[in-house]
């Protein structure tokens, strides 16, 4: 615990002296890491699948932004509201989706993601296709948080979520989740209620995503429905798989690698292939996802962990 605290303080000090561009990346990695932490509980530990995690990020972002713009609610409260909105939505949706498994669960979560994206695009109350502009940023006293501030807030949230999640998965609760992933019938025979636990893990992952979304909305101050499409959900899956599905450090590693690699590819690929434009990183992301799953299914953190133990 003390080591983690020292690491955290050291990290913040380091961030303080980075260039604004690097600070922006650190903030983005933090936001994505928060989503991936939740996703790892639901996919890695409980063994389920969600292809609609971007929808919960969107719900959090829109809830916080709408409250701030229309009711002038403080964006700090918006973080809480974003988490709640996503959590409630996940709770409601779970009665439909969690009756399904594997392929069908993947389909249902994917469908949910698209419906949410279409709904935000169509409903004028949420800005429609032109999105929401001028979303108020976070402030501390009279200080309007800059990039540096967001990086610190994001990682403070990650640190809290990380400690909470680590205690959760390290307890009997986490072992119950793992039992579900290796067979619901067997888990039920041990006195575990798979349905309830899956629902709780799903809601937890949505709350993390919602908080991350609310923070994202304040950070970039502009959102529209295209920011939270299917491809973002796929990116979260990639972060989860890359870092290691059943590892919490993996969530942080995965988010960092995907964001940095994405930036790197976006800058380098056009130099090599001048005609390349747009989403140039997607080809590499796809190949990496496949290669990881075939060669290193336990992810980067899982691989590092097995070396350490060996």
């Amino acid at each position, binding site marked *: 615990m003390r080591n983690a605290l020292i690491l955290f303080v050291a990290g913040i000090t380091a961030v303080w002296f980075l260039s604004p561009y690097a600070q922006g990346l650190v903030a983005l990695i933090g936001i994505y890491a928060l989503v991936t932490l939740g996703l790892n509980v639901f996919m890695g530990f409980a063994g389920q699948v969600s292809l609609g995690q971007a929808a919960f990020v969107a719900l959090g972002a829109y809830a916080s932004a709408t409250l701030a713009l229309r009711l002038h609610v403080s964006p700090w409260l918006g973080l809480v509201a974003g988490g709640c909105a996503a959590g409630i939505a996940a709770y409601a949706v779970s009665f439909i989706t969690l009756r399904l498994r594997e392929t069908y669960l993947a389909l249902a979560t994917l469908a949910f993601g698209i419906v949410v994206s279409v709904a935000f695009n169509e409903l004028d109350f949420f800005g429609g296709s032109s999105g929401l502009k001028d979303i108020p940023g976070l402030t501390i006293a009279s200080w309007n948080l800059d990039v540096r501030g967001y990086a610190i807030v994001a990682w403070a949230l990650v640190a809290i979520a990380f400690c909470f999640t680590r205690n959760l998965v390290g307890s009997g609760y986490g072992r119950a989740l793992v039992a579900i992933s290796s067979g619901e019938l067997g888990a039920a025979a041990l006195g575990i209620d798979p349905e309830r636990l899956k629902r709780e893990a799903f809601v937890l992952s949505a709350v993390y995503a919602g908080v991350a979304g609310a923070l994202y909305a304040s950070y970039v101050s502009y959102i529209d429905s295209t920011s939270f499409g299917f491809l973002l959900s796929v990116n979260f899956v990639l972060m989860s798989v890359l870092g290691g599905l059943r590892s919490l450090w993996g969530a942080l590693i995965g988010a960092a690698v995907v964001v940095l690699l994405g930036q790197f590819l976006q800058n380098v690929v056009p130099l090599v292939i001048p005609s390349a434009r747009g989403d140039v990183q*997607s080809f590499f992301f796809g190949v990496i996802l496949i290669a990881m799953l075939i060669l290193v299914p336990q992810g980067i953190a899982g691989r590092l962990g097995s070396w350490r133990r060996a």
Partner: protein
Amino acid sequence: MIAEIWQYLLAGIAVGAIYALIAAGFVLVYQVTGLINFAQGEFAMLGAMTAASLAGAGLPALWAAALAVLVASLVGALGYLLAIRPARKANPVILIFITLGLSVAIRGAALFVWGTNSLSLNAFSSGTSVVVFGGVLSPQTPWVIGADVLVFGALYVFLRHTPLGTAVRAAVANPPIARTFGIPLATIGFWSFVAAAAIGGLGGVVVAPITSASYDMGLTLGLAGFVAAVLGGLDSLPGALAGGFLLGIFEKVSGGLISTGWEQGVGFIILIAVLVLRPQGLLGHTVRRA
């Protein structure tokens, strides 16, 4: 009002015929391998883009179409051998992620080849639109329906009236017993994947004149195709046909009456409803539990 709905319905039939083709690919692969291939829509994109760029280079339409289907099949074969075969023993969730990766990779590769510009392809037959009871049917519609007849007809004849097709049906019905009869399950899995890619490619070729072709069209087409497949029943080819047309009509009629932006949303609301109320789909038999 009635005339309007009739017009939306006709538009829905044209779109539905394409969804049915993509859905057929999903069903074929799912039946044989138990796999949902998220890359299915990308094969349609490959077909459309190849056909459009070859026809743009001056190749006769028929040749362009044939080569486009060939390209889609080749990419399908490569994708299966490189991405899916090495992991075929992995659990279903991992396989879903792998086909997801395949889909993103193909789409990204297309971006390198063709860039972000969209390409157009002339309709296969010039001539005026067909008028049916006061509603207008686009000149491309007969071609799309023709492709449906070709594909579903060929699949029916192959599966029901050839020894090889019987072997495929045996492999679907009971893999362990089929194996004891010497039916090579892995080979059948491979060829069903290639056939699905070819069917997807053909779907792309016939849709290109309607929507024009771009590198990112695969996602929407694939998702719609698979809503159609689930709607009809993932293990039923007639279901794919019915699901495709139903979804197309649902989308166009509701899109026309409410707002076109909701079209895609409607499809997915239907998907969720089907998954909850009748997960085996309209004409499907069982929900496969791994």
